[in-house]
């Protein structure tokens, strides 16, 4: 379980004739077995935040710490699209991101594939899997590195409603079982309410405007009244800020 600490993190993109602020002095802390969702309208800097946390991009200014005790935390990343190497089998895709590729690692990868019900697909190529199965392979890959922190960038937004619902359930079970720290970016408020222990609300211009603690008991049913009420509450907060989520 990792700790993420951000202090006045800022990201600016310089285009030919203007400067775009993607993250505007964002500060927050996530630690322990938390499942924190980041929600907000398109262009509020959600994905940029994950890219900076994962090291794909660098911040313009501010302070960022991702630690596990005294050491640097290990990260796993689940992307919007599965981002599997199409020319490698499912098992090789999991092995690709491992530091060590011995028998033990292979067994661990197989175990995570089985956890997402893909135990029989290790020798298949991604093109032979459905979209939902590919995304599950992506989730298995992220867990198979045994990360301290799991970053997820709208992982279910490309999937149909039924598959998405099934995967959300599997993700919740995996999270409960593995006790990882998760930072989950989504534009789907219901999804955030269903899965999170805390929700960070972002607004256009990269502002972190509010934090909401979700204390509904797990497991949560997306179609229940409690989730619907919590969703309505979040939407009202956005409306009050005049920043309706899209």
């Amino acid at each position, binding site marked *: 379980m990792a700790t993420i600490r951000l202090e006045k993190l800022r990201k600016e993109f310089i285009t030919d004739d203007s400067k775009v602020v993607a993250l505007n002095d964002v500060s927050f802390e996530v630690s322990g077995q938390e499942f924190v969702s980041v929600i907000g309208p398109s262009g509020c800097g959600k994905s940029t935040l994950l*890219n900076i946390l*994962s*090291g*794909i991009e660098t911040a313009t200014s501010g302070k960022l710490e991702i630690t596990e005790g005294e050491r640097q935390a290990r*990260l*796993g*990343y689940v*992307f919007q*699209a599965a*981002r599997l*190497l*199409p*020319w*490698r089998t499912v098992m090789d895709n999991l092995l*690709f*991101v491992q530091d060590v590729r011995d028998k033990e690692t292979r067994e661990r990868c197989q175990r995570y594939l089985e956890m997402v*019900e*893909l135990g*029989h*697909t290790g020798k*298949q*190529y*991604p*093109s*032979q*899997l*459905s979209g*939902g*199965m590919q995304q599950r392979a992506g989730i298995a890959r992220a867990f198979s*590195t045994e990360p301290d922190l799991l*970053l997820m960038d709208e992982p279910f937004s490309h999937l149909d409603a*039924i*598959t998405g*619902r*099934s995967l959300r359930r*599997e993700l919740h079970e995996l999270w409960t079982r593995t006790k990882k720290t998760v930072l989950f970016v989504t534009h789907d408020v219901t999804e955030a309410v269903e899965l999170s222990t805390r929700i960070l609300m972002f607004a256009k211009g990269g502002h972190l405007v509010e934090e909401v603690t979700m204390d509904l008991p797990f497991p949560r049913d997306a179609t229940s009244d409690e989730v619907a009420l919590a969703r309505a509450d979040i939407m009202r907060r956005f409306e009050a800020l005049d920043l309706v989520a899209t």
Partner: protein
Amino acid sequence: MSATTLRRPALPSSGAKLVNVLKANRSARIMSWISLLVAWQLATLVIPSELIPPPAQVLEFMWNEVRAVTVAPETLYMSFGLSFERLGVGLAIAFAIGTPIGLAMGMYKPVEHFLHDFVVVGLAMPSLVWALVAGMWFGFGNLAPVITVTLAAVTFVVINIAEGVRNVPKELLDMSAAYGVSRWRTIRHVIFPSLMPFFFAALRYGFANAWKGLVLAEVWASTSGAGWVIKFWYDAHRSQGIVGYALFFILVAILIERLVFGRLSNYVFRWRATTSREIPEPASEAPAKEGA
């Protein structure tokens, strides 16, 4: 749930069957070759055999060549063997030079701008010019044909590799970076495989252009090889030799395309989707369980 009645379609008549067979793609292709043979045979009735040899005469010539029965100084196997040696060496040099240049062009804009015009000129240059220039510079021997092959192929290598570098999927590079995958593993497992389609394009186009260039170079600037043997038959006024050797060129090109490039490509790109190999969805994604 709605009910639909399926009717058994009426069986086609034998006349309709024949029309269907004739309309099939494979039949059309076979018919085109038969038409060519018929037209060829008919042409020999009005045109002297010194100009157009009858198909039977060409086939006899080719059969003799296959059995290494020939009056030419080189048998079919010697001449094509030597030409392939030159082609192989020339292509290897073209890839050895073209790959780093292509990588540099794909990665660095200034290099692309610096070399752009030369690449365009290289692509537009007929192989004949390379053959003549190489012959002029290096005279008779192995060097001129090899250099011709290299010059005729290198631009195709450069342009395809550069395009390949520009098309390396950024999302996969980002994924590798997010997981902290080492640079060498990223090159080996992400960059190199994504370059493969472009590498194959370079190989195919480079081979086709180099093969034409090689034959010309052997006609003009060599005293051996398949190109030179076709010239031998030309000088000997044996039209069946010229046509027969031309057919060998075509056959060899088709064989290389099908047996070497085709199979290699099927192996390298075996990961590409084929519907017959798709595996079924696991039960967990079935709506029934969702509703449970």
